[in-house]
């Protein structure tokens, strides 16, 4: 429980932001960054802790988004219920994909490929199927209110996404401390050795993919509710697959706060690029790609790892200078 206290304090501090910041632009920026952090946390459970690098997390994001929108618009289901159902559908999809891929023993390159292909199949289906609105996309009718989960104020959306991110942080911390989390890391570090010790690797990875799918789908549900419009290119597009893996890798892969930190940094870089060069298509992604390569190159453990390393260096320096000061006083 103790480890959850700093997380609670951190979330509480973030929750106070809309009390002081009233700019819609800033709030919008934070909302989108938190949404990406949530999608990234989903990737992090499977990729960071489980070592299974998915290149197609758009499959979960898009499925969550479409489920939320379609259930409301076509079946008249309450927005909150649709939102929860979207998360559940994402988790189920995770279970199905996990069972299919891990039971056939796909790892590494093959796993990355098959996830990419699944996302692409779903994108093509969504771009032709009538239920998704095909090429036109799906619009959620504007209808402000608590029961429809639509708000005039950005602050309300901010608190919702912050709450979801808070939950994802707690879930990740609980996983980290659980037996399941230890098994998952064991599978990442050496799958064959873990199996030899009696860990049911494919089952563990499948469970990780269920949690992962649910979390990333939650980000998709939120996207649909916040922007009220999705089409196949948004919901199942490469951009979200890239951003979902980018945030934990930049922040610190396999760490609790990596995705949140990564999302804030990545989105800030995107905004700076827009300020410097105007809103040109592709520019933000050029920077994301470059940052991805550079972080892997020079900071393989991400910002969290880099900061820990820097702190260690600093502590060593201060302790060694303290030691030399002590020696001096002795002499």
């Amino acid at each position: 429980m103790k480890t959850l206290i700093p997380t609670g304090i951190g979330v509480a501090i973030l929750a106070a932001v809309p009390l002081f910041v009233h700019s819609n632009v800033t709030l919008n920026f934070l909302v989108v960054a938190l949404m990406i952090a949530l999608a990234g946390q989903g990737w992090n459970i499977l990729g960071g802790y489980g070592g299974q690098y998915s290149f197609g997390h758009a499959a979960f994001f898009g499925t969550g988004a479409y489920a939320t929108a379609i259930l409301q618009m076509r079946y008249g289901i309450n927005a909150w219920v649709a939102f929860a159902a979207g998360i559940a559908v994402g988790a189920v999809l995770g279970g199905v994909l996990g069972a299919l891929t891990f039971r056939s023993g796909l790892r590494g390159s093959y796993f990355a490929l098959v996830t990419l292909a699944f996302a692409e199949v779903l994108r093509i289906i969504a771009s032709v199927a009538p239920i998704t609105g095909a090429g036109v996309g799906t619009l959620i009718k504007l209808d402000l209110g608590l029961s429809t989960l639509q708000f005039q104020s950005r602050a309300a959306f901010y608190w919702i996404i912050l709450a979801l991110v808070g939950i994802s942080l707690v879930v990740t911390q609980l996983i980290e401390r659980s037996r399941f989390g230890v098994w998952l890391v064991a599978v990442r570090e050496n799958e064959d050795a873990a199996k030899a010790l009696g860990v049911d690797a494919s089952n563990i990875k499948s469970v990780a993919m269920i949690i992962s799918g649910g979390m990333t789908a939650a980000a998709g549900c939120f996207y649909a509710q916040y922007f009220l419009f999705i089409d196949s290119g948004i919901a199942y597009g490469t951009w979200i697959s890239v951003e979902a893996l980018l945030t934990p890798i930049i922040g610190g892969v396999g760490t609790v706060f990596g995705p949140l930190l990564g999302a804030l940094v990545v989105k800030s870089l995107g905004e700076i690029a827009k300020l410097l060069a105007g809103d040109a298509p592709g520019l933000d992604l050029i920077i994301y790609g470059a940052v991805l390569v550079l972080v892997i190159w020079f900071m393989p453990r991400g910002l969290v790892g880099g900061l820990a390393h820097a702190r260690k260096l600093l502590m060593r320096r201060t302790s060694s200078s303290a030691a030399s000061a002590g020696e001096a006083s002795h002499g």
Partner: protein
Amino acid sequence: MLSPATLIPAVINGLLIGAIYALVALGLTLIYGVLHIINFAHGALLSAALFAAFFAFRLLGLDPYVAVFLLMPVFFALGYALQRFVISPASHGDDRNMLLVTLGIAVIIENTLLYAFRADTRIVDIPYAFQTIDIGLMFVAIPRVIGFVAAFAVALALWVVMTFTDIGRAIRAVAKEKLGAELVGIDVAHVYAVTFGFGTACVAVAACLLIPTYYVNPSVGNAFVLVAFTIVVLGGMGSVPGALIGALLIGVAESLSGLFLGESLGQIGIFLIFIIVLLVRPRGLFGARA
């Protein structure tokens, strides 16, 4: 619908496009066979090569069949440099990092093209693009026939290089037993980079053969590469004959499913083959290892 008059042209068109797929897939399978990673930048490199071929024609007036002799060495050098000076040092010898780095490079290349040239689709206006010849069963566009022949010529050339030259032997040695190759004095980093260069040069050739009858935009390579992934998986990762046969099979399958199901659902057919092969027989038809 099932009359020979519609089936035969569909099959022949499938074979013709399959030959180009084969070139793209060859590059991919070669890199996988030696480095044991999937090069996710392959599609973006193909888009870049198509743009290069496009501007070689538009600005320099170079015919694509002439430009190929310029672009092949340029893209070889590009691939060599990417592997030797970016991918290898950046990934610290970890396979997962290598995948991410190639993905990062793909994102950079694709979006640089998007930033520079916008999403517009361009075509070259080559006078002979729509000239056809009668091959007995039907009329086919001359560039498609040239593409078919050239693709197999390149595959043959590659086979000769791999079988009879020192670098070819070194590549095969590294693919089979990396440590052993290192012990007998083979420069593995160099071999990796040469392999990557060959793979990228294949893409440049494919681009020059495609451009007369195809279009170019910043994401055009992706469509090809997802097909190429399918081919490589179907034929068996790292298998060269597998890539050739797989490419022709997929070319025909795509052409036929396009005929019966329509364009976009035809694409799904490819992906379903892909996913089923991956799940049921990840070694592919000819692959030695999964």
